[in-house]
């Protein structure tokens, strides 16, 4: 067999991913949607990630406030802390950091689980029994990520504002009412809507990459680790790329 050039290999990999995405998309609308499995995956992906995202959001809010406060004080702009924390967390830092955390936790676990199912012939067993593994395993996981990651981000953003308030209150004596009034009135739909859309895209990419790697890596037990590792690395890169594209699009639509 002729050896494939790296460029050809990359094209084949892109074609494989496009084909996998197409079969995911086609299977969303097929009869026999797996509602029970969707709810089970939403519970695993969403509920079981609340702890880590809450803690991350809370500490992010504290750290942002503590890091910005000395500089803002120098310019006599300490009163801008709530607005600054709120806008930066909700527009950019919250969605990206939570998505990267979820890439580490969720994409790796989906990649490892599906790859081990592949290695132990469980996916083949589904196929030969006449069931549809894409519908049962892939559609449910990607949709659960697309729904739960935005919700986790909203929750983490809220916790970041709480963290920011606690840090500001301890260092400057701001009241809770004033802090949240300033933090929330500065926001408008141009801050919230693009960020929310971005989190849905992050969710889809995390679920998709996890499932794709799980289905692709099937050569023995070593591939389980490789699938998990590759799922984290690839989905993290996609999160950064999607972020860049969405920010550029948002800016060109809203601010030109």
């Amino acid at each position, binding site marked *: 067999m002729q050896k494939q050039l790296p460029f050809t290999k990359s094209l084949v990999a892109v074609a494989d991913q496009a084909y996998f995405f197409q079969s995911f998309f086609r299977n969303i609308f097929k009869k026999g949607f797996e509602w029970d499995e969707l709810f089970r995956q939403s519970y695993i992906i969403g509920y079981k990630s609340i702890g880590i995202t809450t803690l991350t959001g809370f500490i992010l809010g504290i750290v942002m406030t503590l890091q910005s406060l000395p500089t803002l004080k120098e310019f006599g702009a300490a009163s801008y802390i709530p607005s600054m924390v709120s806008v930066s967390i909700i527009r950019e830092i919250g969605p990206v950091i939570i998505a990267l955390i979820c890439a580490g936790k969720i994409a790796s676990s989906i990649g490892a689980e599906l790859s081990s199912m592949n290695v132990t*012939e469980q996916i083949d*067993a*589904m*196929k*030969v*029994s*006449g*069931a549809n593994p894409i519908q049962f395993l892939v559609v449910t996981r990607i949709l659960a990520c697309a729904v739960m990651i935005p919700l986790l981000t909203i929750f983490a953003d809220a916790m970041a504002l709480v963290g920011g308030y606690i840090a500001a209150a301890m260092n400057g004596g701001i009241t809770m009412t004033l802090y949240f009034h300033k933090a929330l009135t500065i926001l408008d739909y141009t801050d919230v809507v693009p960020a929310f859309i971005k989190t849905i895209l992050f969710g889809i990419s995390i679920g998709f990459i996890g499932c794709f790697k799980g289905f692709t890596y099937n050569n023995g037990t070593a591939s389980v680790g490789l699938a998990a590792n590759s799922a984290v690395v690839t989905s993290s890169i996609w999160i950064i790329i999607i972020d860049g594209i969405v920010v550029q699009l948002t800016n060109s639509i809203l601010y030109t």
Partner: protein
Amino acid sequence: MEVVIEIKNLKKSFGDIGILKGINLTVKKGENVVILGKSGSGKSVTIKCIAGLLTQDEGSLKVFGEEIKDLKEDELKALRCRIGFLFQSAALYDSMTVRDNLIFPLKRVLKIKDNALIESRCIEVLEAVGLADAIDKMPSDLSGGMRKRMGLARTLIVKPEIILYDEPTTGLDTITSKEISNLMLQIQKKYQATSVIITHDIPCSSITADRVLIIDDGVFIAEGTHEELENSQDDYIRSFFK
């Protein structure tokens, strides 16, 4: 008697390596066919082609008269509902209990919604394989022999007309291997299923086979009853039975 599997000049390669080099096989309804061969001789590839998990490069493969490679996705799915496959590792869904493993094909393949009927079908197959007490256990709680039995129960629950066994006794002790082989024979009689059994376990072959084929380097080199091949004039053929 009706022919259920018909293979003509089947070839399959992976890259440069030819695995099946033109095999021919006809299996009639109700027959138990055993394929013996060394590791890497193409046994598993043959039954994976029959189940439509792999597509041949050349040749014809008909199951119930339908050419597998020409079937569309939905047609292949419908055909697979008539075929059962027992994997070497049993391939139990390890995130589900024994009950859920059994319910999975019932709800999705046979579209059965009646809970009482589902429960009775589960109990029936578990009793057939002697695992009625394990219904609420997880696959990780089952021993190797129990996992094989459970895999067999999941295969049987959809009442397949053809059962493909991929090394059903590999990794089991002699006594359990014999129990599984006898169970396969009982099941074939009870459910009137056609079986293709891939193995290199000679006692399993002697218990279950109506006809034995020996595959070597991607081609069938001998065919006959277990006794005929065991007493063959050819030293190489006889060496499989020692």
